[in-house]
């Protein structure tokens, strides 16, 4: 065996649990959980239906430090019902965003992995996501940066896909998927001709990290390594706040209108990439991250 000391051992964001991600993302030993599993706050609705419950209802929240700075964090556990939002899960996140307004941390970090509303308690889940959105925007209005991280097995969909795009900045890995209606939902409702959810390449082209980065929806694309996410968050903390102003929203409005005008008729992501000026659009899914970022930057797409 060769000597592996000094070799950086990477920890996959994609494969890590909600708690595992926090362990490697934050300063060592700095995480302090709020309403942790010992409080046994489970979903009363799942219990009523005789379904398995989780003592944290699928979300870990708390305080920590990043690069020495105080942050509030929430991390959704995809392993429990795909990170879906129920009454308690949602209330923990809303409460954390409200706590931020009192504590004014350097940032709120949201490690998003969710299919959206938990259908076992659908009505409460939908209202909960609406409450999360309002609390998130109130925190932003109070001047607190909200940074979203996406890169887990279940992606970030449904109402949580809207929540993600309400953040100041997003960081994603190539494996990360971000959208509204998941491919399975579209296929089931509209038919396989509309969206073949089993076509993995199509799914990744349509909702995957690289496409989201090229559209400018996420600001940083990183390797599937928790250390890379950590570096990206530190970098994000140094960026100026977007702010919820008329000017910033008019700018966003123009950007979205342009996107619709320029790419509204494209049938596939590769057509959009070609229109963006990427040289070999069909090769984009195969590029490693450094090469991809170089190609994107040559086409003037730097995620901002």
């Amino acid at each position, binding site marked *: 065996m060769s000597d592996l000391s000094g070799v950086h051992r990477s920890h996959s964001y994609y494969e890590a649990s909600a708690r595992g991600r926090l362990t490697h993302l934050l300063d060592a030993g700095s995480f302090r959980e709020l309403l942790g599993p010992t409080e046994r706050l489970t979903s009363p609705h799942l219990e009523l239906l005789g379904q398995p419950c989780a003592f944290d209802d699928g979300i870990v929240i708390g305080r920590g430090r990043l690069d020495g700075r105080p942050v509030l964090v929430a991390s959704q556990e995809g392993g429990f019902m795909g990170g879906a939002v129920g009454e308690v899960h949602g209330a923990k996140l809303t409460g954390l965003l409200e706590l931020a307004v009192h504590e004014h941390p350097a940032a709120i970090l949201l490690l998003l992995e969710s299919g959206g509303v938990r259908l076992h308690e*659908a009505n409460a889940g939908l*209202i909960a996501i609406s409450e999360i959105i309002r609390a998130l925007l109130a925190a932003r209005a109070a001047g607190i940066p909200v940074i979203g991280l996406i890169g887990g097995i279940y992606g970030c969909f449904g*109402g949580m896909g809207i929540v993600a795009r309400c953040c100041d900045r997003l960081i994603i890995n190539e494996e990360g998927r971000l959208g509204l209606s998941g491919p399975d939902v*579209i296929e089931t409702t509209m038919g396989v001709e509309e969206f073949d959810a089993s076509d993995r390449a199509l799914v990744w082209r349509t909702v995957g990290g690289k496409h989201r980065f090229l559209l400018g929806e996420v600001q940083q694309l990183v390797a599937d390594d928790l250390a890379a996410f950590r570096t990206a968050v530190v970098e994000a903390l140094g960026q100026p706040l977007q702010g919820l102003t008329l000017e910033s929203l008019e700018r966003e409005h123009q950007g979205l209108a342009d996107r619709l005008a320029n790419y509204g008729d494209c049938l596939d992501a590769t057509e*959009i990439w070609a229109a963006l000026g990427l040289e070999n659009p069909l090769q984009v899914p195969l590029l490693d991250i450094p090469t991809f970022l170089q190609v994107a930057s040559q086409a003037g797409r730097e995620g901002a």
Partner: protein
Amino acid sequence: MTVEALLNQLFPSGHAVQTREGVLTGSATTPKGAIAVMGTGSHLAVGVEAAMALADFVLKVVKEWPGRPLLMLVDTQGQRLSRRDELLGINGYLAHLVKCLELARLRGHRLLSLAYGEAVSGGFLSFGLMADEIHALPDAKVRVMNLTAMARITKLPLEMLEEMSATSPSFAPGVENFFKLGGVRSVWSDNISEQLEEAIARQTVGDQRRKDGLERHGRKLAHEVSQLVAAGGTRT
């Protein structure tokens, strides 16, 4: 109820609200003054174009009619389910609409919504659910999904979900259930123009829904849990 009938009942002294491709925009007169009106009709599935049209209107209201209250009329079957909308990043378009509404709130516009047709999932989330006060007509169809679909997806027996729905408002569709959960502030069964006048005149501080849900015994934990976290996680 048709949009025209609804508008006539809401605004006996007149309105100038147009409908274009299922999107309603315009203004109306009430005894409390002018009000901006926007929303959807014909159970519109909200896609990227509709989200842009609505956001466009909100920004116009903010710029041209500073401080004017805004009423959102909700009739949507949900977000548009299409690969093309996902390709364009529909979640970002709906988030943009949500942010424009928050901007209006921050700049002193009172935001009200009235679910008069269907009020479903992502479509409802992107505008109606952003209001300071969310109201509904008694026959509005507020839901995420019906029990048959829920039974199929959750693999739970339909009979069980039906039985549970009798005691818990979290499962089955319906205005009454959303009322109990705090997601609907009140049901406007008659004199809707007077109800609107009163809603314009009231003031709402923050998001009242968890409190309403607790008082109505529909959502028993959301208020307490969020309060506990917001207080720093210490039980007092």
